């Protein structure tokens, strides 16, 4: 049972490689016999693309007995790799010349690369989220953020009357108000750099030197809230990135299908009289 994932990846990868190699060899063998191998490879590629797109439909119909999503995702990934090989056979392993075909192929690669990137991202980001802790439902983040903001504001405001000094309130307005108001340091969290938080922490340390013990307690409470907000931003950045990559992958997939349909019409439209001879 141990390392079942590794075994699965290696075996599925090997099967994909064998099928890809078989397709390449078959294409070379068939090329001299078939006048238009590109028709055959093209229709095969379209069928593969429709199969790959069907995964999204499977997700939308969870109540139908269409198999497990994880099986579909595995097939989606490995058949996706095969589609690249079929595309290579279809276009003769060269970059197309015309602008339409160029766009079509560029779309394919953006879709494919976004898929690969999303897959890798989906593998690594959950580990980071779990290691950091502070698990929170994505939909609850605005509510929690607002609660933290209210608490921090309240502490800052009350400190004015209690200490007869606006040092903490000024500090809050100057450095923290924007930080608490909305998600912050999105890209820093994605690339796992602590620089922005270190800067905020340094400012807290700097201010603490000028406060009396009671004010320091208040500042420590605000610092704790800021730390929670930073953790929340981390969750927000990583969780939203896990969702956002699909907003590239899925719409472009439909664009690719649209261009592909047009490509099929054009190819058959212009091939009349040239391609087919009984």
């Amino acid at each position, binding site marked *: 049972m141990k390392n079942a994932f590794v075994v699965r990846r290696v075996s599925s990868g090997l099967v994909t490689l064998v099928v890809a190699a078989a397709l390449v060899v078959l294409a070379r063998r068939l090329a001299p016999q078939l006048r238009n191998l590109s028709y055959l490879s093209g229709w095969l590629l379209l069928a593969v693309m429709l199969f790959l797109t069907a995964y999204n439909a499977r997700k939308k119909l969870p*109540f139908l007995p269409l198999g497990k*999503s994880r099986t*579909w995702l595995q097939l989606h990934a490995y058949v996706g790799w095969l589609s690249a090989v079929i595309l290579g056979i279809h276009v003769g392993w060269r970059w197309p010349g015309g602008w339409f075909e160029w766009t079509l192929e560029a779309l394919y690669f953006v879709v494919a690369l976004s898929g690969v990137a999303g897959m890798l991202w989906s593998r690594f980001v*959950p580990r980071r989220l779990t290691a950091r802790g502070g*698990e929170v439902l994505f939909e609850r983040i605005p509510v929690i953020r607002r609660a933290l903001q209210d608490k921090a504001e309240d502490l800052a405001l009350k400190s004015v009357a209690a200490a007869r000094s606006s040092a903490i309130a000024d500090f809050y307005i100057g450095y923290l108000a924007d930080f608490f108001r909305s998600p912050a340091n999105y890209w820093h969290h994605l690339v796992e750099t602590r620089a922005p938080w270190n800067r905020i922490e340094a400012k807290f340390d700097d201010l603490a030197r000028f406060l009396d013990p009671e004010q320091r307690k208040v500042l420590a409470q605000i610092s704790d809230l800021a730390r929670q907000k930073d953790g929340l931003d981390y969750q927000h950045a990583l969780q939203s990135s896990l969702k956002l990559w699909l907003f590239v992958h899925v719409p472009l997939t439909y664009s690719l299908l649209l261009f592909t349909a047009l490509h099929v019409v054009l190819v058959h439209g212009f091939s009349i009289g040239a391609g087919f001879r009984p």
Partner: protein
Amino acid sequence: MDTVHFRVERPGRWDNPFEPEFPDADLDRLLATAPFSGMQADAFPKTQPLRQILRNDTRLLRFKKGEIVVRAGDYGSSAFMIVGGQVRVALPPGLPDRVLGRRQPQKRGLFRTIAQLWSNPKVQEYRRPDELKPVQGAAHADDGGDVRVFLQDVPRLLDEHKTAVIGAGEFFGELAALSRMPRTATVFADSDDTELLEIRWQGLRDLLRFDPALKEHIDQVYRKNALQNALRAIPLFQHLSETDLQRVMAETQFGTYGDYEWSGDYKRLAKSGQLAPEREPVVAQEGDYPNGVYIVRSGFARLAKKFGSGQRTLNYLGAGRFFGLREIVHNWRNPASTIASQTSLRVIGYTHTLFIPTAVMESIVLPGAPAALLPVPFTADELDEDDDDPLKEQGGTGSRVGPELLEFLTSNRFFNGTATMVIDLERCTRCDDCVRACASTHENNPRFLRHGPSSGRVQVAQACMHCTDPVCMIGCPTGAIHREAAQGNVVINQSTCIGCSTCSNQCPYEAIRMVEARDGDGAFVTDRELRPILKATKCDLCLEQPGGPACERACPHDALKRMNLTNLGELADWLER
């Protein structure tokens, strides 16, 4: 120094009587009735007199002919004594679910499955008209605030099903109440003047403790009805001849530990952070002479070992598991170097055990037992007191999942689940495909929350776990929450759910939600006083859907699994995959 700001009365045994007002006249009448008239008042301590036990832990109920008293399969925390009239017990195979107000879910066919594409209501928590009125064959009767279900067309039922009559002075329901097993038979009133004394488990426990005759009577009933089957089902006793088995049965002792309605206390203690193994009742203590084998009959117990100044959990033992057998086998094989109990057995919640003394084990059970069924004696390494890795001794699943996760599962009582939703947080992309799939398969109403306590990479989501010991089923007045017959999953019949929230309040895992029912236009359905009609909802494991739980099937990353946590091996395998 702290200052005492206010004083409260210390909570006491008699604070929460079963019946707020138990008339003295009824109490006198009861005390003049057998078996109470024969009980020795002196045998009861002054702090727990018989009269006070009856006043506090019993109530008199009157039933009309055909009214159901208990249903087969339900869980109940009380026993009954017939004071007047008579009741009928439905003999095997029992009455059909339909007449008991239950509805068994049926798998959808292909067309009904596909039809969900267009037939799912747009409104959340929509209830069909047939789900808002009692199911055919059963009806509600309101008698002094109690909700009753009565059988319809009793003469026809009597023609079609075998029943037996029991009359005044007889007890029933005591085994289910004490052992926390489901009721084995349906009992309904056979005359309009049936008067029953309902004794809740606390009272029954005390009566048994202080009245040997009643204890003997209940023990006899237990031995006659349940013990033989229970022992015969355990492989270690299957080689015994009938005579030997009878000898073992005669020496077997029954034990009940902990609090029957543990979920309330558990919730309170968990909220205040006071849950600790050290506070749990001890069944057997580490270091004591192993004077017998404990067999967990129902509930759960914690196998623990002293570690530092606390107790570290090695495993949890559910129904059918042994405690002390390995020590006894070791001592039986090594009479010159006997050992004490290597671990403690502590009660988690409520536990019912069978206890077979060492002498009986050594003289009757062990000699002819197949060697493959006997545990191996302890090794010198395992008995080394300086070894500070107690999990090593287990050598099994306890060590495979690790001490932190084991403690997490035990302290949160997750061992109770047979279909617990476990999420691997290192693979979960928080995409919520599981939640959407659940909503799609339940008319746009998700039946779980993808959130819950976690330990390391393991999160247990707030979804019904379909517990081995379903405390949610205790006290359901109409039997709406019940185990379905095919797989034993806990389901709620929307037609007979009266929205009392008993199940929701009992569930220790916050897995049952009360929702306000709506009609097809989205308006809340109300009663005549304009109070919303509530219904209990929870995960039903997609029993009606082909293919099993949609949440698990919808997870693209193999991060979610419905798992039987009564067996740690499944979890260990999954984590090591």
